[in-house]
């Protein structure tokens, strides 16, 4: 090469000089074109920035891509990114409009009129109308589609009529007071575009109105979504939310692995880090650059006693269990003291919470009750465990009940076999969790013998409770409904099953550059659209 240059009369020195001069020239010209990189990278504090993508680590995967089949924590976290209901509960468990702009009831709650928000677009760009609401509600009601709310929609005999493009009328036969709360159960009554289903009627790609749209789901591995450019809510800059372009939600079931991935920078945001780590962060401080928040919603663990089989068909044995379980010790042992002890499924700040004192631990009374029931020398019982979710709780129950002579054998199940076992009543005790509650009819409705969840609370048939539940379900006035449900709470506490122990702590941890995030439910985007990842941005 040099020999070629020389041959054209250009010396090596001249060539090097020329290259150096050209390099300096190019460098200077690029420097003049734009300001230094450092000045460009620093974002103004508190001002949302658009763009970027987030990697999120969650504890459970979706159980189904169909939002109407929402069941597990993974569903709660993910489905709300894509789909939204007409109405939703807010942080105080009060119902407020989402895709419905306004709503009103007529004929004592038998008829509900929903005026839809105009200009709401599905992910495929089509505008949402009354026809979509009717299609969605009819699909939920049709039993063959397997929607969670199918049985409720059939019990209340929900009929949907399109009044005009933006107005929908629903008529129901019963359950007037609880109706809106049913529609507010996360995405179980979301409005989907009919293009979401394939020829066989299965949802293969949910096309909703949420801020993020479906890209890909690899079961057990990850879920991907990108921003919905035509989303109906706008950000601080007047343009449609969300600020972030794309999300990748990875399933990392082990809490320590999730936390390590966050600390190593592989994830930007995780749900439910190890409780022990969160306790340490509260007592001392979180790692450099990491932020976290602990919060509560109506999310409780509970213990059910099978009232249809000995020994728990004897109320004295159930009361003995009541007097033995030490909620504070359970909270300390399993949740490192981060939960809130309680005796009903609602958080203490909820409108539906009843201020009924927690029964004190009284081992003498418990032993006496066991004696009276003929189990003074102890009794063998099985505890069905939803494993691994409730493994630690089960160990604590086992140890505490040993104090009154109950020899508890743990019978661990995966979710599928656990929920198949409960309706058989072939178990003694069962440890469960319940969440996403905006009305007492959902948790206390399980006490009704016709409810599919009746086995979950021990299968106790109580005609008085049945009457109260029917009254509460139809009561439109919240104050009067609350008074009715207070009697229900008092009654099931006397019966001794189910026993609610701890309102579970919920913790999110994320890097400090994730800004603007807040939520009050398990959803990554709050179901009422007021908080969530669609309002978050990346300051990096």
């Amino acid at each position, binding site marked *: 090469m040099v020999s070629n240059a020389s041959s054209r009369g250009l010396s090596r020195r001249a060539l090097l000089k020329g290259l150096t001069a050209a390099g300096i020239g190019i460098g200077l010209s690029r420097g003049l074109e734009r300001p230094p990189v450092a000045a460009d990278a620093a974002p103004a504090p508190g001002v949302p920035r658009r763009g970027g993508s987030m990697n999120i680590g969650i504890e459970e995967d979706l159980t189904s891509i169909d939002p109407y089949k929402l069941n597990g924590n993974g569903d709660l976290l993910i489905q709300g990114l894509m789909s939204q209901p007409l109405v939703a509960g807010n942080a105080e468990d009060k119902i407020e409009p989402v895709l419905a702009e306004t709503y009103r009831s007529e004929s004592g709650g038998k008829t509900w009129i929903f005026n839809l928000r105009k200009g709401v677009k599905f992910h495929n760009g089509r505008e949402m109308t009354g026809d979509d609401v009717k299609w969605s509600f009819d699909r939920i009601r049709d039993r063959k589609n397997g929607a969670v709310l199918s049985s409720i929609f059939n019990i209340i005999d929900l009929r949907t009529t399109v009044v005009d493009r933006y107005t929908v009328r629903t008529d129901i036969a019963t359950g007037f007071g609880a109706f809106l709360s049913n529609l507010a159960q996360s995405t179980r009554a979301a409005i989907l575009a009919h293009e979401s289903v394939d020829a066989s009627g299965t949802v293969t790609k949910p096309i909703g109105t949420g801020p993020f749209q479906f890209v890909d789901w690899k079961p057990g591995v990850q879920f991907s979504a990108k921003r919905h450019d035509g989303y109906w809510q706008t950000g601080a800059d007047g343009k449609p939310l969300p600020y972030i372009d794309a999300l990748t939600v990875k399933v990392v079931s*082990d*809490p*320590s692995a999730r936390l390590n991935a966050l600390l190593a920078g592989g994830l930007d945001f995780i749900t439910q880090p*190890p*409780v*022990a*780590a969160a306790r*340490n962060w509260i007592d001392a401080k979180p790692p450099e650059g990491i932020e976290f928040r602990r919060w509560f919603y109506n999310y409780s663990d509970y213990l059910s006693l099978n009232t249809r089989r000995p020994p728990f068909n004897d109320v004295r044995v159930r009361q003995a269990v009541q007097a033995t379980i030490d909620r504070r*010790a359970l909270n*300390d*042992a399993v949740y490192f003291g981060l939960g809130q002890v309680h005796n009903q499924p609602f958080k203490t700040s909820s409108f539906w919470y009843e201020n009924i004192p927690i029964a004190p631990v009284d081992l003498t009374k418990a032993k006496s009750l066991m004696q009276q029931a003929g189990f003074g020398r102890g009794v063998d019982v099985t505890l069905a465990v939803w*494993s*691994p979710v409730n*493994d*630690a709780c*089960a*160990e*604590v129950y*086992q*140890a*505490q009940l*040993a104090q009154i002579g109950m020899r508890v*054998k*743990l019978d*661990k199940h995966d979710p599928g076999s656990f929920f198949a076992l409960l309706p058989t009543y072939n178990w003694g005790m069962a440890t469960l969790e319940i969440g996403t509650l905006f009305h007492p009819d959902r948790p206390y409705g399980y006490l009704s013998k016709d409810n599919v969840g009746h086995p979950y609370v021990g299968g106790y048939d109580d005609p008085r409770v049945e009457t109260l539940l029917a009254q509460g379900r139809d009561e439109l006035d919240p104050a009067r409904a609350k008074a009715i449900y207070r009697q229900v709470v008092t009654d099931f506490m006397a019966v001794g099953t189910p026993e609610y122990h701890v309102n579970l702590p919920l913790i999110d941890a994320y890097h400090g550059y994730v800004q603007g995030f807040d939520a009050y439910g398990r959803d990554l985007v709050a179901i009422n659209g007021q908080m969530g990842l669609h309002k978050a941005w990346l300051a990096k």
Partner: protein
Amino acid sequence: MLRLVRRSRVAVAGLCICVPILALALIAPAVTPYNPQTMSIGERLQPPSTRHLMGTDVFGRDIFSRVVAGDRVSVEVGGMSVLLGLVAGSLIGAVSGYAGGLFDNVLMRLMDSVLAFPAILLALVLVAILGQGLIAVMTAVAALRIPIFARSVRGLVLAERTRDYVDAARCIGQRDSRILARHILPNVLSPTIVLATSYFASGIVIEASLSFLGLGVVPPDVSWGTMLNDSLQVMQIDPWTVLFPATALSIAVLGFNLLGDGLRDWLDPRLAIGLQSAGEHRQRSS
């Protein structure tokens, strides 16, 4: 004993570890200062101290007491699974090797097909079928060992059945079952027992793995595997919760492996001759 020390220092090292482990398993309830199952929430996650030698776990249980209780479970599972596997496997291998022909072929292909599965995967499947608990874990681990012992014993029986003493026994009209039980089996037992010692350690590891995955020993029974699982959430902040059960598991596995290797060196005359001739060869070369 002195001969053993001279012949195999490895076996002695193994014995020095295994004897205390076995002794501790025998007298566990007498040496544990606390009930290993009793929770004391007020004392949870205490670091090692004179009150709790190895500290306490997330439920306030004494880790030393649980390590000792876990030792008993490990020895039970290791011992019983090897014993069950040894008896069943030896029986299958001996009959198969002695009978030969199609019977031998079918049985051995069956054993091969079991061996084709990774041990832990097969154990998971078996526990899923049998259900959880100590008995299920022992049975699952034993089932994994049956083909190994069967193949080993079969090979030894194949070699023995052509020997003169077997022909002599046949000539005097002894029944096949008697020849197998009284003459062949005693001759193949020694190397099989050595093999059993080696598999004791892997039995402990499989039990701990299953319990760690939540599929082995069920609370309130204690296992080193469940202790490791319990410590997952707190191991970074309270490392003693993982350190002591993990160390106990490692020492036990090391001990039984050393003992197995040592016994093999000591008892297997072929290895002894091999070593000796190798030594002679080295001396000649130098």
